[in-house]
């Protein structure tokens, strides 16, 4: 399957927009997690955890799935392939890990939002969960920065499967799509 030039550009644009948007949204989430953990102002703490739930459900999760889907379509619809180059494979694995961890964190995010909505959070209240949100947001940001670096630099290296496909293309004289 090879995408036409116009469709390829569209999918590439959607992939870049969703991936960079995901990175930015996680950065905003991290700022909220820091504010929720360190602020002395009760309204700021409450607002931070309420905003984190909205951000997670309506910005981060949709962008994560958009990035994953457009990335898979983009790679399968071009000569890059999904399993031919190590950098594509690494980017896929990192994106999958980030998405799965995000989905597991939704329960914690929702719980903290409920608690913040219904009670005043003291400094020590639910500290483990609050630190967990901070650590996961920071880790997510690092992972998404790594996928961005991979996408920009495209470090060389063919997988065995990619090398075999390349040999087949050379033997048949096909031009890669």
């Amino acid at each position: 399957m090879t995408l036409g030039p116009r469709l390829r550009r569209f999918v590439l644009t959607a992939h870049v927009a969703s991936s960079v948007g995901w990175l930015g949204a996680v950065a905003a989430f991290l700022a909220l997690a820091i504010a929720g953990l360190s602020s002395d102002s009760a309204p700021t703490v409450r607002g931070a955890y309420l905003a984190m739930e909205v951000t997670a459900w309506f910005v981060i999760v949709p962008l994560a799935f958009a990035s994953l889907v457009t990335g898979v379509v983009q790679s399968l619809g071009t000569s890059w392939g999904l399993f031919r180059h190590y950098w594509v494979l690494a980017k896929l694995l990192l994106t999958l890990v980030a998405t799965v961890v995000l989905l597991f964190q939704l329960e914690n995010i929702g719980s903290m939002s409920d608690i913040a909505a219904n009670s005043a959070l003291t400094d020590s209240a639910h500290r483990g969960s609050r630190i967990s949100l901070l650590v996961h947001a920071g880790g997510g940001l690092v992972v998404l920065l790594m996928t961005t670096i991979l996408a920009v630099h495209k470090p060389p290296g063919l997988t065995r499967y990619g090398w075999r496909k390349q040999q087949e293309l050379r033997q048949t004289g096909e031009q890669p799509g």
Partner: protein
Amino acid sequence: MAESHPDPELPAPPGTPRWVKVSAVIGLVLVAVVVVVLATGGPGEHGPGRHSGGDDDSPPAGIPEGHEPPPGHAPPE
């Protein structure tokens, strides 16, 4: 799936790049660290009871009776 008869005319496949090997080692070390942290119940411990207020001094009764989490948020066991 294409047939994969080895062709003696073909050159040997390239080896795994160094950046892949280094990244794989770092990834495995990180996974091991995460497993150890989870197994020892470190900060941000996972599992049932983590949201029940057991890790702090505040009572879990901050949520009023009859409150239900929004759709998609299963209550902690």
